[in-house]
């Protein structure tokens, strides 16, 4: 039964992926990509990885989807209709042969590896020492805390890189000038946001809190908050701050800074870099998670919305 479900799910995943990759229209492609992300989330649930499922749906499908949709609509506005240049048949055939060979080899190799849980036996005995029960949180914030620390800086760096593309003229603008113009949908979005925002805040706080014991955690919470922020911005309820405003800077930096400071404090107190002092593990981990959730929310929202766009000429005239 469950096997049949798995196979069906996988077929659906492949189908949505195929459509997302090869459908002609760009918007349709992204819509199917989001559907593909949600199905992947289901797959992760089927694999028993609730943490990843949450992250995949919120971050992988949600935030990436929003970023791509916004990018597409901006490209349309700029006159780029995302038309697909047909590659020559020979090149397509060659690519197909190459990729088919690659897929067959990869699938064959994958089948030689017996599936199995390799490290939970190593992880489990260490968790009581940390005072938390969710092994994934333990890996993310303790055993592989170094990876996670560096990864938060990747997020921050991506944001800086994206924003340094902005021309100076539009730097004074808030991150997006794109607000829904259709009055009806705008009212809907506004009303939706007013309901959603508090709920999202609560859900996020809860996700972080339970993250230490149950599935959840900083990334998932950050993604939920980011989603709320994006919707609110598109609805015109919230105006995201400029990157060089104090609020934005604090929100973006509090997570990495807290993480780095606690890591260095561990080293300064005689332990190792990123080692938590005895007894304080859970407190410190939860502190880091809340700080990270704020920064991730701000970072993902700003990334998804994209840097401020130079206004087209007619829009600039309207603004006057």
């Amino acid at each position, binding site marked *: 039964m469950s096997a049949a479900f798995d196979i069906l799910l996988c077929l659906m995943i492949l189908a949505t992926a195929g459509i997302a*990759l090869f459908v002609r229209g760009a918007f349709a*492609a992204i819509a199917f990509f989001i559907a*593909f992300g949600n199905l992947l989330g289901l797959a992760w649930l089927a694999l028993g990885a609730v943490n990843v499922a949450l992250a995949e749906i919120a971050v992988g499908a949600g*935030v990436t989807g929003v970023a791509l949709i916004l990018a597409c609509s901006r490209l349309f506005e700029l006159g780029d209709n995302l038309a*697909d240049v047909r590659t020559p048949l020979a090149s397509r055939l060659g690519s197909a042969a190459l990729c088919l060979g690659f897929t067959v080899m990869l699938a064959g190799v994958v089948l030689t590896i017996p599936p*199995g*849980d390799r490290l939970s036996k190593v992880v489990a005995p260490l968790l009581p020492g940390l005072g938390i029960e969710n092994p994934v949180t333990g890996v993310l914030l303790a055993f*592989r805390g170094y990876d996670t620390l560096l990864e938060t800086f990747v997020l921050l760096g991506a*944001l800086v890189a994206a924003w340094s593309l902005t021309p100076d003229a539009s730097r004074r603008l808030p991150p997006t000038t794109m607000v829904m113009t259709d009055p009806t949908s705008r009212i809907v979005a506004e009303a939706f946001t007013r309901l959603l925002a508090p709920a999202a805040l609560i859900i996020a706080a809860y996700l972080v809190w339970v993250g230490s014991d149950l599935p959840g955690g900083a990334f998932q919470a950050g993604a939920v908050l980011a989603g709320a922020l994006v919707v609110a911005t598109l609805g015109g309820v919230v105006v995201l701050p400029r990157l060089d405003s104090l609020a934005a800077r604090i929100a973006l930096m509090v997570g990495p800074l807290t993480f780095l400071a606690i890591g260095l404090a561990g080293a300064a107190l005689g332990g190792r870099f990123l080692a938590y002092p005895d007894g304080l593990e859970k407190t410190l981990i939860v502190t880091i998670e809340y700080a990270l959730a704020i920064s991730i929310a701000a970072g993902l929202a700003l990334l998804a919305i994209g840097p401020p766009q130079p206004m087209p000429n007619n829009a600039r005239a309207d603004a006057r």
Partner: protein
Amino acid sequence: MLVEGGHVFAVTGAVLAGLGFYSFLVKRHPIRQLLAANVVGAGVFLMLGGLGRSPGGADPFAQALVITGIVIAVALSALGAAMVVRLAACGDKDEAPLGEKREGP
């Protein structure tokens, strides 16, 4: 035997990676290529998850790697999208192109 473990998902991941690669090769628009890269990434993650599956649940270590990977992927995708939009908006012209004469301080 094939079905008991996570092989179904792992093989699906492998096929996704292949599909994504093919799409990356034949699609010329950078947004579509970004999409393709995301599918390849998702395929790799699914492979990792599928091969980390056991009757008792999924390998927490693999889960953590995947979460880290997803966040990096979204950061890169958003940066890529921003670059494509900016390129379409302004062409390849920076405000102070290289080679332009500037007076030093």
